């Protein structure tokens, strides 16, 4: 990819990320490095954890390497999460919530318990892909984990409170 094109994609991503940071979505946001069309960002986000976000303009992906830690690959949690992620492409979802497959495709993977999300950018609209990825992670923590049978996981792995008082 031409360096100038790559640069413009990375600028778009950085601009979106900075805007999210300014709007209080992340605490502590910084750009780590840019090299050969790859930019890495780091931010403090859900459950006060540090999240990495890596944009690779050669592979045309946006990757969050650890969305959920310590999830065994054979666990019901991982199985449910995969279905949850895939459901975001469903045609039954309204346009403003659906991840349009012609524009971006999201996949999750499990590497020794660390669950990652990778958004493949299909039409060079990195802004769209990033926004959908950020929303998906947001929904993971605020809807998926809290609505499902994952209390012990939330408490033991993510430090959530187990008691009201």
């Amino acid at each position: 990819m031409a360096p100038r094109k790559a640069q413009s994609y990375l600028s778009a991503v950085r601009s979106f990320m900075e805007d999210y940071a300014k709007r209080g979505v992340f605490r502590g946001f910084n750009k780590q490095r840019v090299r050969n069309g790859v930019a890495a960002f780091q931010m403090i986000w859900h459950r006060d954890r540090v999240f990495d976000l890596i944009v690779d303009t050669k592979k045309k992906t946006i990757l969050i390497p650890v969305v959920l830690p310590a999830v065994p690959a054979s666990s019901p949690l991982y199985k449910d999460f995969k279905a949850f992620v895939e459901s975001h492409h469903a045609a039954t979802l309204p346009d403003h919530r659906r991840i349009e497959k012609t524009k971006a495709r999201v996949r999750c993977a499990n590497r020794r318990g660390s669950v990652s999300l990778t958004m493949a950018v299909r039409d060079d609209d990195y802004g769209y892909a990033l926004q959908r990825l950020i929303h998906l992670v947001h929904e993971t923590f605020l809807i998926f984990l809290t609505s499902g049978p994952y209390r012990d996981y939330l408490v033991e792995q993510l430090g959530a409170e187990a008691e009201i008082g």
Partner: protein
Amino acid sequence: MSNERRMGKKAGAEKNSGPRRRAFLGGVAAATAAGALLKPQQLFGDTSIPSIRIPKAVTESLAAPPRRADFSGQGMTGAQVFANLCKDEDLAALFCAAGNYYIINEIAQVGIPCYGGRTEGGMCAAADGFTRATGEVAACSGTEGPGFTHMIMNIATAHFSNSPVLVLASNQSLQQEDNWKRIQFMYQQPTTEGIKKYGKRITAPNRVYEYGAYAFRNLKSGVPDVVHLDFPIDVATERFQDPSKLGCFFSKERYRSESRACPGSKEVQQAIDMINKAERPVLIAGHGIYVRKAWDALLQAAEKHEMVVVGSGPVRGHFPDDHRLSGSMSNLALMSADLVIFVGQYQMPSAGEWTLPPGVKTIRVHPVQEDLGRNWPVDLGIVGDEKDFMEALANGLPPKKRDSWVDEVAADKQKREQANLELNEKYLKYSRDTNTLHPFVLCKEVHDFLYKGDIDPKQTLAGWGGNMIGFGSMRWLRANRPAQEIPCVYQFGPMGPDLAMMLGAGVAVQRGLGPQAAYKGAPVVVVTGDAGMGFSLMELDTFAKYKVPVICIVYNNDSWGTFPFALSMNTPRALHMYLFQESIRYDRMAEELGARGEYVRTPEELRAALRRSYDAAAKQDFSTLINCQGMKEFNVDKLYPPALSFAPEPGVGAVSH
């Protein structure tokens, strides 16, 4: 199973209820009621134990004519000056345990409705519950030292719920400062630092009126919160024969104003433009909507412009959960919002705590400028009164239809209700297998009884607390009209004040005050845990004394619901600290306190007990404690999955903000 108890029968000799802690009754041939208390007891002869009864003296005392003190003759004491001020401010109620005598006695004597209970802490919770149920100021009182410090947990609870509770405490003489003469002197004000809006230890007697005015200015304006006054005895007993001796002695029309900050017209128009352009706006109706009684304007604006609304706060119902525009059970749909409007949200969440999209465009309306932008960045911050703003919106927003947005919210709500029913089937099986009640199953029975049966679904004011049982209540209790639900654990998460808090709420319903007017006299319900009984059980005596009918549903799992901590932290030697004896009969304790008692183990038994209890409450003002046998193991996810946890926020079940 039910255990009926007959009440009101006299048997045996009258009890000798002579003077207790202070000797001021001795030698005073005052009212008939006082004289009746001094009859000697028959020591020999009939030894049968009398039935529990409300003493005649209570009824006579409540019927005694009020008396307003004035400057004539010997003049007024500081306590009487203060009591008159409270009366002129229409202080709606005082809840107290005996102590701070000069103040509470004069407040009662001037004609303010007063309620004496079993502990200062409980009475502070009652005052909090009363303010949540009515929106009016209530006072609580405790004696110096131990009485005051007993209230700390519930003062903090009231503070974090923005309840306008006037905390009154006596204090020892100014002559006792720093020399420990006698007992109970302490500096109270530092103890309530951080859990009140305003406080003062009144040290100059001639400023008692002035500081009373300070108190009510703070209680009745801006963002409501706790006010704490402590009265050294020198202040309460000083006499004034001449109004010129009192500082700032002018009427409330002059010492405070009802004026409110009106939102700027330009900013209101900006808000209207932003809302009109949005495709999926969500209005968060915070506690300020309730405090300012803006629910009619809210409903008008929401319906005119098809805005989805979610109510929040320490008392719920200012936007009905059963309204088609309510997003209170549609957290997934709320993630589609493209604009959020916070109105009157006092306890502000942080960005990322609530199910709203990251970085969503935000408008916030708040009466206090310095809070705008705290925790959650705003695109438009407006300083203004909540009611004025909602009326401006109702007038200024054009009529609009947002069918697809409303449909999306409705579909999500339906999905969640279906999920709840499916989950209930799972927990029902656990209940049947163990012959005990799962908290989710219990709360669904209460839900069906209150909202799906033959009781008006808008009628019953219900409060809830506890840990395990709280996780069930938060999913099943509803608020379909203003002040119909009180989450007693809101923000501060106290365990135990629930029953006492609902005493205050029950008084509000009994008197038909504010939003409770249409349901005057109806029973109230509280769902709580057995751990909470250690704090509030004795207040069933107070419920009975004042004939306030409550149905108290106790989830009895023989433990603090947090016992899994001892297991998950691999500390078996700690487990005993979390456990109670098994099969404790709180229902029998209730009977000995003048209430009915029921003991249930199955949903069918609970259903029948609810019906009997409701009839007894509605027809005869009898309270009932329903002891529901549960199991602590239901809180262990590995044994009975899924263990219950917090509901997503905002909406039904929210406790944090």
